[in-house]
């Protein structure tokens, strides 16, 4: 792929803004890492060597306890199995991930499900939450869901926002006038109430995935409007340029003009907004979870953890501390990236007025 020299120059500038660039690398690293979360934080073993055979239970189907002679047909408890192998000392062994817990299982602490303070010996690095679930696991998987969710949110809102914004800007006139009024009306719908109302009528028989998709749809449906304003002005501006007239003269239709010529020239605007949209999406889904209208339980989520944390502020401060710092860390990284992009893509850097 050959980059436009201007774009290459901008990217180069971005690379030289150290804070933003390293933040970007950190996010990239986290994203890649989270793709392999199952290998790092999981209650399933990475490798089991049992009676001369190797098992790799991390991905794919669950392995029932019967396989390892545990006498039950449900998922093997690998931590127990590990203990057993150690005591039996019959040449069987297994390797657990770094954090040997998954985000759903409840762990006892002194025979009780309750928050446990961080402990290295239990390998609960950040402690556990109110039902004894490992916080590292819940944070990390929660983070992954938040990232995926916000990416999907970004793509959808931008596709809709850019398409409608460009249409209004390009065609102008009545399309613009009517479109703008409709958007103004739509923007005044109170988003939170709509979420609450919709979720009260969504049948509970739906699976969790479809409920997450419904949440995504509602959030997208009420968030694409912001982008239309920028794209509309962008399209208005570009439409008046000579090169657009030239394409028109050569017989290019509106679709070609919008997608091949106008949008690439407004890319700077789009790219600059992206990180802030991600911040917005993560904050929104966290806030909804905090209020109990977000992802269905027991889906791991930052907001739910934050809620638990504030409810147990005095008795289990590690819950609020870890969720708070994780959220601040993530949002700061994204904001740094956003700042750097804005600076790198700032058109004023390339023009000298005297």
């Amino acid at each position, binding site marked *: 792929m050959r980059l436009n020299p201007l774009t290459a120059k901008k990217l180069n500038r971005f690379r030289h803004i150290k804070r933003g660039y390293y933040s970007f690398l950190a996010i990239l690293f986290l994203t890649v890492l989270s793709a392999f979360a199952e290998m790092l934080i999981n209650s399933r073993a990475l490798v089991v060597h049992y009676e001369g055979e190797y098992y790799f239970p991390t991905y794919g189907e669950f392995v029932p306890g019967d396989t390892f002679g545990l006498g039950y047909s449900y998922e093997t408890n690998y931590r127990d199995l590990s203990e057993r192998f150690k005591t039996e000392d019959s040449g069987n062994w297994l390797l657990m991930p770094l954090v040997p817990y998954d985000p759903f299982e409840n762990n006892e602490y002194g025979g009780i*499900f309750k928050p446990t303070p961080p402990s290295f010996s239990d390998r609960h690095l950040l402690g556990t939450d109110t039902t004894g679930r490992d916080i590292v696991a819940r944070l990390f998987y929660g983070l992954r869901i938040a990232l995926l969710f916000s990416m999907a949110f970004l793509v959808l809102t931008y596709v809709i926002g850019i398409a409608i914004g460009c249409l209004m800007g390009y065609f102008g006139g009545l399309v613009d006038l009517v479109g703008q009024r409709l958007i103004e009306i739509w923007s005044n719908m109170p988003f939170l109430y709509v979420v609450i109302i919709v979720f009260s009528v969504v049948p509970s028989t739906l699976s969790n995935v479809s409920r997450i998709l419904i949440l995504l749809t509602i959030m997208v449906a009420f968030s694409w409007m912001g982008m239309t304003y920028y794209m509309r002005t962008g399209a208005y501006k570009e439409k008046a340029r000579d090169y657009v007239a030239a394409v028109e003269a050569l017989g290019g239709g509106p679709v070609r003009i919008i997608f091949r010529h106008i949008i690439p020239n407004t890319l700077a605007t789009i790219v600059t907004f992206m990180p802030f949209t991600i911040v917005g999406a993560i904050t929104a889904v966290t806030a909804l979870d905090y209020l109990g209208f977000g992802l269905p339980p027991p889906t791991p989520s930052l907001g739910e953890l934050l809620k638990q944390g504030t409810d147990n502020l005095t008795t289990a401060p590690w819950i609020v501390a870890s969720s708070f710092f994780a959220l601040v860390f993530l949002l700061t990284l994204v904001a740094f990236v956003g700042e750097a992009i804005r600076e790198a893509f700032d058109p004023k850097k390339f023009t000298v007025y005297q």
Partner: protein
Amino acid sequence: MKTLYSLATLVVPLFVFFGCSSKSDESSKEQDAELQVKVESLKAEVEDYYRTKVALPIEVQDQLENGEVTQEEIDQRTAAGEFPKFFQFKNLENLPTGLAWEDGSDLPEIGSPKATKGGTSYGTIQDFPRTLRTIGPDSNGSFRTLLLDDVAVLIAHRHPNIDEIGPNGFRYIAGLAKEWAIDKASQTVYIRIDPKARWSDGEPITSDDFLFKFFFMHSSYIKAPWYNNFYNRFFSGITKYDDLTFSVKLSVDKPNFATYVLEDIPIPEHFYGELGDDFPERYQWRFAPTTGAYALKDEDIRKGESLTFTRLEDWWAKDKRNFRYRYNYDKRHIRVVRDVAKSFEMFKKGELDAASLTLAEYWYDKLPNNDPLVEKGLVSKAIFYNQRPRPPYAMWINRDKPLLNDRNIRLGIQYASNWQLVIDKYFRGDYQRLNHTAIGYGPFTHPGIKAREFSVDKALEHFAKAGFKERGPDGILVNDAGAKLSVSLTTGYTTLKDALTIIKEEAAKAGLEFRLQIMDNTAGFKLAMEKQHEIHFMAWGYGAEMYPRYWETFHSVNAYNPDGSIKTQTNNLNSMNISELDDLIDAYRASTDSSEMIKMAHNMEEIIHNDASVVPAFQIPFYRIGYWRWRQYPDDFNLMISESSSEFALSWMDVEEKRRTLRALRSDETFEKSIKVYDQYKN
């Protein structure tokens, strides 16, 4: 220019103000006139109702409801004089002689003579009430307890410490009644009102308020069909002998029939003069006169924020036995605090007098025995074991839904729900496993039925019988058609979310997936009332009645409409539709004999257990609270059937002690540590 403008702005609002006021003067006169007409027409309507209303026997009511007879036929039969008049007016000479009058004065008094009056109690509610009415739309919220249930003086009260069942049911103590007499043969209760009894606005309470109650409860104005039905079905007439003497006749002969009359309150006729179709709106924010000790003044209602009740200085029952040592605070301040965690912190700062510690995490972690406040003796902790019908915390399986209509699946769910684990490890062994839904009714409670234990093998066995034999890649069972064994589990109890996530994780071991949905209280209850749930987790609040009710929760008339569609807005959350059970419930409702009813109750309990559509979860045999040392309780703390520490209003406040305690909070002064267990009623 600027001055001109500001002058203009000054003038305009004034003008509008004057314009408005003169206009509203006129319209208020018009309104007054209109109101007068309304009041007069209501009076006429009430009188007409008293003259014409007849009491239909239950069979005839049933026939009418089922469409076997028409209203015209009933009207004709009424005109022919077939049915007795509902409202009858007689003289004292007509009062039967030889009645055994009683007033409960032979029973021990409740309340502590140590109690002193004064001070303000501080408490919270989670939501500002949607109305101050105690009847009609939106009135059935938790605030009603503060307006009515815990405060109002009834005709007579069940003695809260005595559970012996006499020939006329439980033992009673006099409230509004000076004395009463029960005539079992004619199912009539005769009442003499305490001549001192007054409404909180000073009007005397008379027989007319009781007559009016029936007009009120029968009328469609109040928009409360349950009450309409109840007061029509169970009562067959009221007779006024004089202003302070009346009798009420019941149409059912139950061992506890007197309860229906004795545990009731009148309705202030003088207050509801404007009753009409707009009743819900018109009376939305009016505090109705009460028989109780606390009244609410308009200026003490701060919408969305707080309400303050004031004790009536000259309350009519202030020297009455059983009431004189209760209702001790001068004011009761109720603040809206939506967040439970926040209100607990407020309690720890001393802004609230007491906090519930019933949940294990509060008792053990948030206010542990070694908390500085407890160590210094500033805050006391108490456990009180009560004895009353237990709210049945249970998973109610909707038999109408696919999968769940299969008994084997339901049995599998029973064995896959590990409530014992939740009780042992989440509630820390303090709660008890609920065995069935009618616990706490003495001999009526089936002694033998045990909830099914958690057993992966048994669950798998039953699921296999229903076609779910193989586990899918995630460990959840699938059937031959490839469908997953997955059902939704909903609740409106956000505080019990953790318990349900444990249930979900455990059920996965038995190859069952619960899809959790935790909603807020209102949304959860609405879902269940519309019967959209598959499995709903909740408990019913049961009054301290003599025997359990089955009709509401288990009779098929509350499950399906005659056309076969699901009947919504009823308590039959299981869509229970078993003809054998229906017959028993009908017989149980009609039965007049306790021992027969006990047999039937046990029989019904076995059928319900067998059907496996209720997964009993847990019961709480106590309540626990933490309270500041200025709050005082009687030596035995509270009464046997009390549901919360405030229900019978026995506590009082030591004003001097509050000052001392608040001073000690800032100094090193300590008091004796106090953690008390009241297990005198523990079984």
